[in-house]
């Protein structure tokens, strides 16, 4: 990987012509997307439109067929070999690059054998190579930022869904990722627990965390994001500031999508 050129002015995430098929099903058909530092971008779109797939491509949980995804100017999944051919990066390079993107999952996926504190500490210890004391203090700090200082010693099975998801956010954010990817992180929660999780996301946004989130919470997307992306037929169909996107409803597909979700 190249060193750290000055990338302050460049987008953190830069996606060009991204294409991805599952067999005959072309899910992404040329996505172009830039996420600037400190941006909070919400991705909306109907079920099956490829929102999850897009996030998974960014942190290399899924490979893509064509196009490019760059993180601070570094191609995430591929590199060119000596002969100039495109090669998928090996396991070690992928692992290092994945550490630069955080992912929060719809179903939390906390490690059930570890306490909340240990869940947050694992990546700090093994990937960031921090000493126990340092990892512990960083992890404790993040648990308090998500309002769970008193649950540090609890196992995931002893936490509510909302608390588990907040640990999930702390686990991802503590790694100091360049971008945090959030995939419908409140859709598995009971309605009364959604608020506490969104409040944490809101706070991260205010603290300047760069985020790319898939959400069905239109009110939250409208209020918390700096930009909205509507994905349709594998492309970015509409893109703009929340006010604009929701006010103008620039195309029919967006209009019918918004009409449908507002009934939910």
């Amino acid at each position, binding site marked *: 990987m190249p060193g750290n050129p000055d990338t302050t002015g460049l987008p953190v995430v830069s996606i060009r012509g991204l294409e991805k098929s599952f067999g005959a099903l072309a899910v992404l058909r040329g996505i172009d997307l830039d996420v600037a530092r400190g941006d909070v971008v919400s991705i909306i779109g109907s079920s099956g439109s490829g929102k999850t797939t897009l996030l998974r491509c960014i*942190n*290399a*949980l899924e490979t893509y067929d064509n196009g490019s995804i760059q993180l601070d100017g570094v191609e995430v999944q591929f590199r060119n070999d000596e002969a100039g051919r495109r090669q998928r990066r090996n*396991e*070690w390079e992928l*692992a*290092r690059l*994945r*550490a*630069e*993107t*955080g*992912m929060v*999952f719809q*179903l939390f*996926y*906390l*490690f*059930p*054998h570890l306490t909340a504190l240990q869940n947050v500490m*694992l*990546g700090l210890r*093994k*990937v960031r190579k921090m000493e126990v004391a340092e990892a512990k203090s960083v992890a404790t700090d993040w648990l308090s930022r998500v309002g769970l200082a008193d649950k540090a010693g609890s*196992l995931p*099975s002893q936490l509510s869904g909302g608390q588990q998801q907040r640990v999930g956010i702390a*686990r*991802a954010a503590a*790694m100091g990722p360049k971008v945090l990817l959030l995939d419908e992180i409140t859709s598995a929660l009971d309605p009364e627990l959604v608020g506490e999780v969104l409040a944490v996301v809101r706070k991260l946004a205010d603290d300047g965390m760069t985020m790319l989130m898939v959400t069905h919470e239109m009110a939250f997307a409208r209020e918390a994001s700096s930009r909205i992306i509507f994905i349709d037929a594998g492309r970015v169909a509409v893109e703009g500031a929340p006010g604009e996107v929701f006010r103008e409803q620039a195309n029919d597909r967006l209009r019918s999508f918004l009409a449908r979700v507002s009934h939910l």
Partner: protein
Amino acid sequence: MFWSVIESLPFVWRGLLVTLGAAALTVSMSLVAGLLLGTIVTYAPWPARIPVRLFSDLIRGIPILVLIFFVYYGLPVTGLNLNNFAAGVLAITLFSTAQVVEITRGSLQSLHHGQMEAAKAIGLNFPQRLTYVIFPQAVRRFLPPWINSVTDAVKGTALLSLVGIVDLMLAIQQVIGRTYAPMPLYVLGALIYFVINYSLSSLSRRLEARYAYIKE
């Protein structure tokens, strides 16, 4: 007759040691090999998976006794000469390895794929993901069937007597040949096997309880 039975106890004791030695060798070698091959069969790309799959299916399709005869009489044909103890232990180890492969695969696959993904997402590499996330959760599902397979291996060692190894089983039969007291000696033998296996299964229950805190 009573005294001759008592007098023969040291001989039975030596047989027991042979049984325990064979079992210990079998269990430890099959554990290492089975964990490795089971991990390969679960995660490796198909060219590495296929030979392991074939090995496991083949071995599990052969009765353990046939396997013992096969290794004992068959290997010398290929020019490899093993004494009867080594041949017998090798055969039971092969059998047991195939069991451990399947138990390993089963317990790894029973974990939600989200665990692997969450571990990837924080940047752990493959060995780290196995060490810190996957294996610690898989033990809980691995232990009960594995202890079961250990008791199978212990019982399987009784078949070593058929290739002339004086294990617990053959020692008892030889003592019966000398003393004509089959009942007390068979009861003694059954009791010893039972005590070994019962200790193993209570150990298993204790271990299970120790890992019961992991709830997905």
